[in-house]
């Protein structure tokens, strides 16, 4: 009896998640398949892949040292920094967008300084990348922090005593040992960046080829009654997400 109730409750939630997604995929017809190669769809696809790869690269370069420090170093306020890093995961994206706008916008905190250097960020592709890094980097830093903390320090010590410098030890011992976590985190980070909507429209606006990423294109096409393009792009995003989740599982499994 109890087991049946548990199973039913679990099935309800599972069905609630799966059915709408399956319904969307089921909507796919010749119109939708043709729509995915429409110029506006291709423009959004290209922009999304370009910006998310840059956002991922920025996160790897800046996020790995941060994760390393959080995993290894002990300093006052470490727990606070730890919590701050996770903050963008729970902040509503629209709030993130407003925050970016009020700091990096033309009249924001850094606006006059940036302007004096001839830089305007709002409504640019750079703003898209910034919004993506802001909301997605915590996913990588979290995973990397966990992975780096679990690396066997004795292996690193052995490498150092054998004459490998700290950088080479990090590159050839630490990173390979933490690789599954780093890879899993990078994939999640990239997928989150790909889905970013709220902060992007707030800070980067919406312009085809400049700031209209896949999620914005889905929304705009839906609004203008262009359901086939919206559906086609949605299905594409679902498939990419499925692949990412599978790869993350695979990476975790190898840990």
């Amino acid at each position, binding site marked *: 009896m109890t087991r049946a109730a548990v199973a039913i409750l679990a099935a309800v939630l599972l069905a609630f998640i799966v059915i709408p997604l399956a319904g969307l995929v089921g909507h796919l017809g010749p119109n939708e398949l043709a729509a995915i190669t429409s110029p506006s769809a291709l423009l959004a696809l290209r922009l999304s892949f370009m910006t998310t790869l840059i956002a991922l690269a920025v996160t790897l370069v800046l996020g790995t040292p941060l994760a390393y420090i959080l995993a290894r170093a002990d300093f006052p306020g470490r727990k606070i920094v730890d919590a701050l890093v996770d903050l963008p995961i729970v902040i509503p994206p629209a709030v993130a967008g407003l925050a970016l706008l009020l700091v990096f916008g033309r009249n924001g905190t850094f606006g006059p300084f940036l302007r004096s250097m001839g830089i305007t960020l709002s409504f640019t592709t750079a703003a898209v990348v910034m919004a993506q890094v802001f909301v997605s980097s915590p996913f990588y830093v979290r995973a990397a922090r966990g992975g780096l903390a679990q690396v066997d320090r004795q292996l690193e010590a052995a490498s150092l005593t054998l004459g490998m410098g700290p950088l080479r030890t990090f590159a050839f011992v630490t990173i390979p040992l933490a690789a599954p976590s780093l890879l899993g985190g990078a994939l999640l980070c990239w997928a989150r960046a790909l889905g970013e909507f709220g902060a992007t429209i707030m800070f980067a606006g919406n*312009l085809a080829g400049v700031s209209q990423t896949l999620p914005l294109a889905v929304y705009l096409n839906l609004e203008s009654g262009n359901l086939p393009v919206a559906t086609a792009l949605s299905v594409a995003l679902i498939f990419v997400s499925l692949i990412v989740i599978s790869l993350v599982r695979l990476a975790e499994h190898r840990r």
Partner: protein
Amino acid sequence: MNIALVLVLAATVNVFAAASLTEAFNAAAAAFTQKTGIEVKLNYGGSDTLATQIKQGAPADVFASANLVQMKNVADAGLVAGTPKTFAKNRLVLIAPKNDPVKVASPADLAKPGVKVVLAAATVPVGAYARAALTKLGLHVEKNVVSNELDVKAVVTKISLGEADAGIVYSTDVTATVAPKLNAFPFPAAVEPDIEYPIAALKNAQDTKGAQAFVDYIVSPEGQGFLKARGFISP
């Protein structure tokens, strides 16, 4: 139990209204509730968004659109009860942030190189009106557009934050809150589009009487008073 639930629902009218009506409808709905005891729930957005939501089966009782196209869109889907009535008219204005280094003072300035313009998307009524007016003036502004916002209020926000040099909105969107931050310039009367707001009760309304009562209230002299107070023109 079921009947009680229906009664509770019946005492609420869900109104889907264009974002530009926000202030006027908030005030009118409060007065309407006080007068009739019928609660009003307001859902504001771009008229195109609202039309899509209604066509997808959103629980709307009344639709107030910022243009005839989106009302026709809903009517063509067979969802409008009776004939839509025009209840207000509006005007376009050019807005620019005060203290903006790029001095925009007329529609012609929008086409100058380097001017950053924010418009509503072409599918949003105000975006369509703005483009039509600019085309009539023979101005090519699209190259200066840095963002196509999702509704008129988003355009107002971006310009009042000073993120772009100019935008085109309805005169009623230059509210007391944002007016101190903005310069507003009218469009020449010759290119001014006919901006009509139609309202209609919807066929699938939970409470057809309540929906019709709200529509009647908005077109009544009392309802019109709230619109005039916010700068709308009576039809």
